[in-house]
């Protein structure tokens, strides 16, 4: 006869919880959201002997307070959804940090089993864990497992099936006399008023901690017992017990300072941290330009060859001028113009991946916490902003990790100011054409301006909004390690593939669309682009964009096309000026000449780069914003606000720049 057991997987982030979960469930799992929130919930099933186990994976959490969405859903799941057994996955190499959650789980009074994961890392460091003493002190079974190597899995399930029937210890931590006395008194009061309540001791502790959710759910007058919040005392005493456990069970604990700590002393130094981050990013862009350009030479030659071959082929079949122009001046110019930036994109993502995999990027959030605090955000909000260097879509989604709704909204609205990789072709093209030896600095300044604008806008929003209590940053800093070539290779290949797919789809269509509106006018096919529908639209924008140094109708059309994808700005410029290989030296010289004829100078080019940096993000980012903000009003704000900011800042810089140059 089969019994169904409901098992919850609970643990810190990065403890291997989901790896273990996946090892049991394989591909047979269901992914949904926890009710009412955007946090993912995974459910699966596993069969062991005569039992069917229903497994539920919870979000990684450090404690069972109710600050973050993840903590709230996990706590609610354990208390209200009838969990039979909790498997607490613990990273053995960070036992001290993981034990806090373990103690809280045991106090809940539910059956808990510890799955001690990553024992191989413990061995590598020359440490040992006393696997007899640890379960004695905790009062729960401790099963060493390796989620990665899939060892210990059967024993763990065996322990789960037996432990559910045993008596469940609640007294893992015995607090001092004062607190224990209060817990006993409160427990008696609770039992009088709420006779059916389970986990009375846990609830009594929560009352002492002034836990809002518990106090709201079980209103009681305990003012004669509780004179203040005992949260700090309870936390400290838990950690005292954890220290006792570590002293007893952890043998050969590393005494000398680890390599990671030594490196962190420099990289997360209060004064050096931010300059080092800016320096590293400058180096990343230096590589993007120099190495990227070196690799680009081959692409330019290949694209030139393709263009000539196709042109010859179309001549051979006596193709009409319409079709020839569509293919050569539209598709090849547009798509080819973008493909030639692939080497730069490749280098950028390779560098970012190396920084992430080495463990450095987590430090950036920590380093930026000080500045973020002054603009009303925590350093955690910088993580979505960092992702914005790659693409705004996952960056906007990453704001889900922020607890406060107002912080989430603020982060979503400022993240598009961070310069995504799609804008890189615009910077590379115009900076190389107009700034020569200073091209890299001109492009790098875009990233700095984007960062400064994001911070300034967040600062202004924090002054306008209501004051909120400060939430401390709690972030895990993984150990530094040599980047894994395989995982970086996979990631960079995914990025290259995405770029190629984007070129072959979105940019392909956008290039055709731009070509059509530039070659069709009131009288049908036009000989002069200036008579086309595109020109009509562009000319409407000239009076508005002129103060910002962008008073050419071609630039207006290119910027509109950038709503599809920012790379399309470059594709459109190629189509608008009829240059097939715009990134080649000859292509750039031709474009430079044509722009110069229209009075377009280096200052105008810089203005274009700034406007492209700041104005409304692409359609995909706007759609993601709408999904995450769940508000048409705020989405509309997210569209209009960057447009206004872009115009204001570009106009300011262009006018001041023009004045300075005029003075000279």
């Amino acid at each position, binding site marked *: 006869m089969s019994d169904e057991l409901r098992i919850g997987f609970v643990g810190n*982030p*990065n403890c*291997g*919880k*989901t*790896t273990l979960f996946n090892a049991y469930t394989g591909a047979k799992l269901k992914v949904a959201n926890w009710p009412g929130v955007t946090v993912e919930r995974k459910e699966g099933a596993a069969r062991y002997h005569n039992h069917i186990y229903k497994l539920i994976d919870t979000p*990684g959490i450090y404690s069972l307070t109710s600050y973050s969405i993840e903590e709230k859903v996990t706590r609610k799941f354990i208390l209200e959804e009838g969990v039979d057994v909790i498997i607490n996955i613990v990273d053995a190499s960070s036992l001290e940090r993981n034990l806090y959650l373990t103690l809280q789980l045991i106090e809940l009074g539910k059956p808990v089993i510890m799955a001690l994961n990553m024992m191989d890392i413990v061995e590598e460091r020359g440490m040992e864990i006393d696997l007899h003493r640890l379960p004695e002190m905790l009062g729960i079974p401790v099963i060493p497992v390796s989620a990665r190597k899939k060892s210990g899995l059967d024993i763990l399930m065996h322990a789960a099936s037996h432990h559910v029937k045993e008596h469940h210890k609640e007294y893992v931590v015995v607090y001092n006399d004062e607190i224990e006395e209060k817990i006993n008194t409160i427990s008696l009061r609770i039992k009088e008023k709420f006779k059916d309540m389970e986990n009375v001791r846990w609830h009594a502790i929560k009352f002492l901690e002034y836990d809002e959710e518990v106090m709201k759910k079980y209103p009681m007058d305990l003012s004669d017992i509780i004179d203040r919040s005992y949260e700090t005392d309870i936390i400290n005493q838990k950690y005292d017990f954890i220290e006792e456990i570590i002293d007893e069970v952890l043998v050969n604990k590393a005494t000398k300072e680890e390599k990671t700590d030594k490196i962190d002393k420099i990289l997360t130094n209060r004064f050096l941290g931010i300059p080092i981050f800016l320096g590293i990013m400058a180096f990343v862009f230096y590589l993007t330009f120099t190495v990227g350009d070196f690799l680009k030479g081959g692409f330019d030659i290949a694209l030139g060859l393709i263009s000539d071959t196709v042109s010859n082929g179309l001549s051979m*079949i*006596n*193709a*009409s001028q319409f*079709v020839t122009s*569509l*293919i050569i001046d539209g*598709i090849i110019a547009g798509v080819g113009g973008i493909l030639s930036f692939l080497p730069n994109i490749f280098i950028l*993502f390779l560098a*970012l*991946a190396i*920084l*992430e*995999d080495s*463990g450095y*990027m987590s430090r950036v959030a920590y380093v930026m916490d000080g500045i973020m605090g002054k603009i009303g955000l925590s350093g955690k909000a910088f993580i979505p902003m960092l*992702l914005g260097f*790659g*693409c705004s*879509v*996952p960056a906007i*989604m990453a704001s889900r990790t922020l607890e406060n709704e107002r912080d989430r909204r603020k982060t979503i609205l400022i993240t598009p100011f961070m310069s995504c990789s799609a804008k890189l072709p615009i910077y590379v093209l115009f900076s190389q054409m107009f700034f020569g030896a200073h091209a890299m600095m001109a492009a790098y300044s875009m990233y700095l301006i984007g960062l400064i604008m994001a911070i300034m806008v967040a600062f202004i929003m924090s002054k306008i909004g209501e004051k909120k209590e400060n939430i401390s940053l709690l972030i895990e800093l*993984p150990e530094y*390690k040599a*980047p*894994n070539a395989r*995982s*970086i290779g996979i*990631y960079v290949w995914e990025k290259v593939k*995405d770029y190629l*797919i*984007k070129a072959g*789809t*979105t940019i*392909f*269509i956008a290039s*055709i669309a731009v070509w059509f509106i530039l070659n069709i006018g009131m009288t049908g096919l036009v000989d002069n682009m200036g008579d086309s529908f595109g020109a009509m639209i562009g000319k409407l924008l000239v009076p508005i964009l002129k103060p910002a140094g962008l008073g050419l109708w071609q630039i207006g059309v290119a910027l509109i096309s950038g709503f599809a994808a920012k790379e399309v700005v470059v594709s459109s410029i190629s189509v608008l000026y009829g240059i097939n290989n715009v990134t080649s030296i000859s292509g750039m010289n031709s474009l430079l000449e044509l722009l110069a004829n229209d009075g377009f100078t280096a200052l105008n080019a810089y203005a274009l780069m700034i406007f492209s940096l700041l104005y409304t993000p*692409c*359609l*995909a*980012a706007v*759609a*993601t914003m709408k*999904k995450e903000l769940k508000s048409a009003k705020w989405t509309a704000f997210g569209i209009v606000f960057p447009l206004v900011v872009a115009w204001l800042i570009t106009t300011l810089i262009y006018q001041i720049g023009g004045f300075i140059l005029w003075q000279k």
Partner: protein
Amino acid sequence: MAEIIIVVLIVLYTGFIIYKKAKDMKKGKFCNCGRDDCPSATKCRK
């Protein structure tokens, strides 16, 4: 004839891309850079 074939292919391909994009957007997949966009196994490991 060859020219007509080329134009038809371009039209069909364009139609296919538009159809696929519209279908993806209905599913909530707005672009190729998705939620699993993370540069390393460490970050993606859960």
